[in-house]
């Protein structure tokens, strides 16, 4: 039993953060070039648990939490799942279904989209050209299909859990980003002749952000290990991780805007990017009550 990252994992996380800071800084999230995906692809993040690298979900979760902190492209989620359970070397877009309606997120240069229907991961075929539009999340485009295109289910039932897990990791990263932005701002912004972080009202709001992020991150680690060890209760633990990570991402993002005050409500500041990403992630296999209440 060990729920702390080992030295290799720490080095990998730190290298990921360095790369993101240099090549994918949050400040540029709204104007990412089409060249970004090939660079990301070259870094191997989309195939960490695939047949070539064969890393475990624990390592993947650690790295994806770091990528999530920089609001990395959401196609990383779907591509990573596809790479593991139906290996292919291409970008796979993220699919969100609701009733008959299918939304394809981050679909540029993708020929397929991966999403979950009735707890089963599905690969949807995409037409050559998508009519994509801007979406709520400024880093993501959306293309809508009133009727879903042709699709097939992935053979292994764990693929859906895998998608839920990496989405939870992204949400944990998002929660971390919001917490750090808020704490950083609370240290430098002054009102009433003091840094606002001196005031308990702000300090405790930041403390609650830290609590939510820590709780979600811990469960993420446990869930990743449970999936790695094929534990019976993996489905519960992954759902629990997703529930807590979604809440942490959304509530931290909201609190971050409140801590920032006026500037937090503007398009030019960064806090709204976390908020919008947090909302997007809510739609990627939200944790159902029934999954959380299921007997192990």
């Amino acid at each position, binding site marked *: 039993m060990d729920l702390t990252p080992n030295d290799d994992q720490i080095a990998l996380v730190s290298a990921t953060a360095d790369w993101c800071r240099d090549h994918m800084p949050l400040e540029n999230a709204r104007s990412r070039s089409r060249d970004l995906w090939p660079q990301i692809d070259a870094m191997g993040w989309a195939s960490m648990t695939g047949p070539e690298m064969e890393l475990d979900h624990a390592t993947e979760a650690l790295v994806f939490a770091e990528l999530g902190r920089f609001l990395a492209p959401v196609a990383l989620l779907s591509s990573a799942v596809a790479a593991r359970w139906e290996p292919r070397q291409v970008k796979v877009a993220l699919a*969100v279904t*609701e009733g008959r*309606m299918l*939304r394809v*997120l981050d679909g540029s240069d993708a020929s397929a989209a991966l999403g979950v229907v009735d707890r089963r991961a599905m690969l949807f075929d995409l037409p050559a050209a998508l009519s994509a*539009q*801007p*979406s*709520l*999340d400024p880093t993501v485009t*959306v293309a*809508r299909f009133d009727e879903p295109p042709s699709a097939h289910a992935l053979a292994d039932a764990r693929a859906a859990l895998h998608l839920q897990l990496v989405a939870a990791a992204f949400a944990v990263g998002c929660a971390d980003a919001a917490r750090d932005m808020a704490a950083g701002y609370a240290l430098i912004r*002054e*009102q*009433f*002749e003091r840094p606002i972080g001196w*005031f308990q*009202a*702000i300090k405790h709001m930041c403390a609650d952000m830290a609590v939510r992020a820590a709780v979600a991150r811990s469960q993420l680690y446990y869930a990743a290990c449970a999936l790695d060890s094929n534990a019976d209760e993996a489905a519960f633990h992954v759902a629990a991780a997703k529930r807590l990570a979604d809440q942490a991402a959304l509530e931290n993002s*909201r609190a971050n*805007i*409140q801590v920032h*005050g*006026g500037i*937090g*409500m*503007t*398009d*030019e500041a960064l*806090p*709204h990017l976390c*908020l*919008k990403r947090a*909302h*997007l992630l809510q*739609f990627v296999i939200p944790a159902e009550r029934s999954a959380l209440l299921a007997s192990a």
Partner: protein
Amino acid sequence: MDIGFSPDEARFRDECREWLNANVPTEKRPIDAAEAIVFDKAWQRQLFDAGWAGINWPSEYGGRGLSIVQQVIWLEEYAKAHAPWIGANFVGINHGGPTLILNASEEQKAWHLPRILKGESIWCQGFSEPGAGSDLAGIRTHGRIEGDELIVNGSKIWTSFAHVADWQELVLRTEEGSRRHAGLSWVICDMHTPGITVRPIRKMSGQTEFAEVFYDDVRIPLANVVGGLGNGWKVAMSTLSFERGTGFIADQVKQSQEIEELIATARANGRIADDCIADDLAQMRAEVAAVRAMTYRNISEVMRTGQPGPEASVIRLFTSELGQRLERMAVRLKGAAMLDFQYGDDDEVADYLRGFAATIAGGSAQIQRDIIGERLLGLPKSR
């Protein structure tokens, strides 16, 4: 205590309703800022001509001189009729005008008030600064007296309608070296004066309704000072209580409509079958009712004593947080369609994103709680 209205008041309500039914524009208020201003001015003029502008403003300045209850009735019927938001006239009607009524000279009132009521003068606010948000007393924009003029330098931020306004209620430091609340003045600033630059700021909902305003040796006549040099803090505070008399009515009626629409939506799409949704809706319906009751209590207090009670700060805080919960429910009921939002859309998502301002603008929720703790409960000041 009673919740009924007198026969006169009931008749007045009927008059409001009849006129609104016949005259509320069928087209929506335009989203485009330039078109919106034309719309806003025309609608305000129409209200004025029909006698519905400034219902409780003094009649010598173009108002109707009626009671606050009649103003409340008008606002209730106005919202129920889905009459358009007064938009660019908001600051003049709800803030600048009331401040002038309470603090300005005869000349200032005689010149400005009728123009506000007629939609001829658009006003904007000039209180917040990049360094002084919740901490209004941290204002650094300053005016140096030179002859009969102030020479103003500095900047203001979060100014709605700055790009279309004719006048600004500008609070600035007119005593060199003064600190905090002392040495501030409340001044009428002509937005067309040379030296003023407006930089629009885009909100995270996509609108550019507010802006940063820069002052570079802007000359304002000393005659434009309201309430006397150095009394700016007192003048600014006086309006808060006026605003809190009837300022809540429009919000309250809007929230009443919103909760009914949310319940109808949840019934229509079946989401109300989820007890969690149903219970949240039930809870908010009770709370919206309570806000009306609180608002009525507050107005009753104004009628009885001429002043809103200290609980006005409670209404403000509670309404702002309730509004955000209503907006959250609206996007929750929207489902994955929320993902389709893009800048330019004017829907529940835009309302939700704009709604973050409710607990930030005009004194954050944190400041409101300080005020409640200190003024209502007598706890020691921590700042």
